[in-house]
């Protein structure tokens, strides 16, 4: 019978004070300061949401703010820190879902919230934790000498670079563009020799001939870039190269849409993870997920796994597939050969980036690389920044060049 009371209890959490509008405005501003994309439009939306819902508890208020200020699950930890800082005195321990290591709640000014890693621009996005560069101001400041440093580093092999030096290459990597050859899309444009008919236009013309469609208006498919699928070996010897090439993919224009998998003895799909974290985080997670890399690399098995789970279901069809591996196969090379043959029937192009091919005259005589080689359209070294152009050219080449395909009579 006491209806309002039962509602209050369902809402849960502690009661809110009267000066809510002022607090809400302060909260939106604090979210902005903490690096969340909260502009005046979102602040206004939160204000309207609070009027609409009339929350009586901090928990319901948090839910109004979540729906209006946040647009990505990765923002929630920062959001919760700011929420605790602004409404801290009001939050019960039980309902605070933030980071247990969040700053002390009551009265703490929102300015104590660290800026997001990545806000500092430059190499910041690649760091798991805000380093010295990111810890200072939240704006990008051009650092003198970056270009020359990058030039110097461009000529060194990835496996000679320290983690810091690799990060210093980020700016240079942003200048690259990853592009794949076009494929036909389901969308269309008018074309005189197109295979499909544009009914709408044909009908319009047909009216002039009393309904006989004499002149067919043809449609041809539009062209879109092909999907890029990257399979990256993260076993011990490959780790520095894997790190560098994933960083390249993350920084370069056009690389963001790629499907990325890592493997050593098992296959891990990074694509959803890459949308959340920086390559450094993601690679760290991937290595943690696959702690068994000292056991060697099973490229054939990983490839089979990829084809069974994703590739054959459409991901590899018509795609450009980039395999990053030194080709040290601890499994059966015959399996790798079989799986490469399978992949080559699906994919538009297979490019293999193998740092061992940096040695002039390298020829795969036995083992994994020998089995895989005939199915590749291109093998590149991609072992340093100065070698990346070859890799990009190989990915963009529209003409398949498989030896397995061309030598079979």
């Amino acid at each position, binding site marked *: 019978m006491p209806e309002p009371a039962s*509602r209050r209890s369902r809402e849960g959490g502690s009661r809110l004070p009267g000066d809510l509008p002022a607090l809400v405005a302060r909260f939106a501003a604090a979210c902005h300061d903490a690096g969340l994309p909260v502009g005046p439009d979102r602040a206004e939306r939160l204000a309207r949401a609070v009027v609409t819902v009339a929350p009586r508890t901090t928990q319901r208020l948090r839910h109004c703010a979540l*729906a209006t200020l946040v647009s990505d699950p990765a923002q929630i930890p920062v959001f919760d820190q700011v929420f605790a800082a602004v409404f801290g005195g009001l939050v019960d321990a039980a309902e605070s879902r933030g980071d247990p290591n969040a700053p002390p709640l009551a009265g703490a000014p929102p300015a104590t919230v660290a800026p997001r890693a990545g806000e500092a621009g430059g190499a910041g996005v690649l760091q798991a934790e805000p380093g010295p560069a990111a810890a200072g101001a939240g704006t990008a400041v051009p650092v003198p000498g970056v270009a020359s440093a990058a030039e110097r580093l461009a000529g060194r092999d990835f496996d000679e670079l320290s983690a810091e030096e690799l990060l210093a290459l980020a700016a240079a990597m942003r200048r690259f563009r990853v592009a794949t050859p076009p494929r036909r899309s389901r969308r269309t444009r008018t074309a005189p020799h197109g295979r499909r008919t544009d009914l709408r236009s044909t009908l319009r013309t047909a009216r002039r001939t009393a309904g006989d469609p004499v002149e067919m208006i043809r449609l041809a498919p539009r062209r879109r870039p092909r999907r890029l699928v990257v399979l990256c070996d993260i076993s011990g010897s490959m780790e520095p190269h894997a790190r560098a090439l994933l960083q390249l993919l993350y920084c370069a224009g056009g690389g963001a*849409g790629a499907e990325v998998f890592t493997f050593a003895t098992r296959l891990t799909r990074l694509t959803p993870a890459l949308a959340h974290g920086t390559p450094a985080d993601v690679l760290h997670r991937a290595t943690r997920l696959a702690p068994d890399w000292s056991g060697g690399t099973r490229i054939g098995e990983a490839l089979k796994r990829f084809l069974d789970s994703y590739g054959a279901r459409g991901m590899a069809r018509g795609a450009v597939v980039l395999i990053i591996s030194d080709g040290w196969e601890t499994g059966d090379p015959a399996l790798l050969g079989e799986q490469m043959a399978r992949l080559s029937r699906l994919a538009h192009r297979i490019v293999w980036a193998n740092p061992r091919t940096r040695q002039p005259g390298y020829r795969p005589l036995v083992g994994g690389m020998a089995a895989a080689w005939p199915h590749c359209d291109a093998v590149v070294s991609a072992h340093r920044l100065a070698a990346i152009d070859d890799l990009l050219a190989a990915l963009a080449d529209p003409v398949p060049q498989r030896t397995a395909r061309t030598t079979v009579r």
Partner: protein
Amino acid sequence: MTAVPPGGTGPPGGSDVPDVDALRAALDGVGYLADDALATALFLALRMGQPLLLEGEPGVGKTRAATALAEALGTTLLRLQCYEGLTAGEALYEWNYPRQLLSIRLAESRGVELGDADLFTEDYLLARPLLAAITHPGPGPAVLLIDEIDRADDEFEAFLFEMLAESAVTIPELGTRRAVVPPVAVLTSNRTRDLHDALKRRCLYHWIGYPDPRRVEEIIRRRVPGAADWLAARVADAVQRFRGLDLLKPPGVAEAISWTTALHVLGVTELDVPAAERTLGAVLKYAEDSDAARAAGLATLISRA
């Protein structure tokens, strides 16, 4: 396109939900358990006339949230399933060409010539979900579900963005159709790719995480009403443990429901290793995942909490 006429289950004039608690109760009434955050987001979408973007891994109840909302409000559901290559013709409207051709022939037999004004009229227009949502006559707003928007391509996203921003669509031959009762738009995404910032800025947002085991247990009870209470609890706990393994496809709510259904249909009286083995395919979708579960020890995974 699926148009579900107002069902008899929803409360009459159901769009008149006074507050978040009432909406939560109404969703509960149609078998959907929403937590307070989701209910608040849905309520805001309803009241503020802003689209709601629901994201989460597959099977956490995004699609069902929208269909349940329509049911709870007793209103029309218009559903657009997205896929790569989806075109405006499939989403918005199409002209009824056979009918137009027929009219041209009929007119010709009477010695009359038809012009644009005769052929491109309301009579020949086939409304697809987006146009149907815009022209929905009310009294309450329709629920427009744009499902798995991450599967459509960017061009469609841009087009959708404009339509949502304007609550209007323009048909070149007929002019602009403005919504009488703007729809409650619910967009879902499995996050296979990021959506455009512009679209995200336009939307309210809610991330649906995998619910805790007690809520999963409750959901199972609702969805498999015949199953024993102990079974729902045991399945929820076991699924939670499966999710702790590093699997290719961690089981979600949908898998918990189908596993319970399988166990229930087989009439198991105890969730032991043989029973789990017989039904493992209902909860783990890959042979590799089943192997991983066996390696971790099925007996422990399914043991009582």
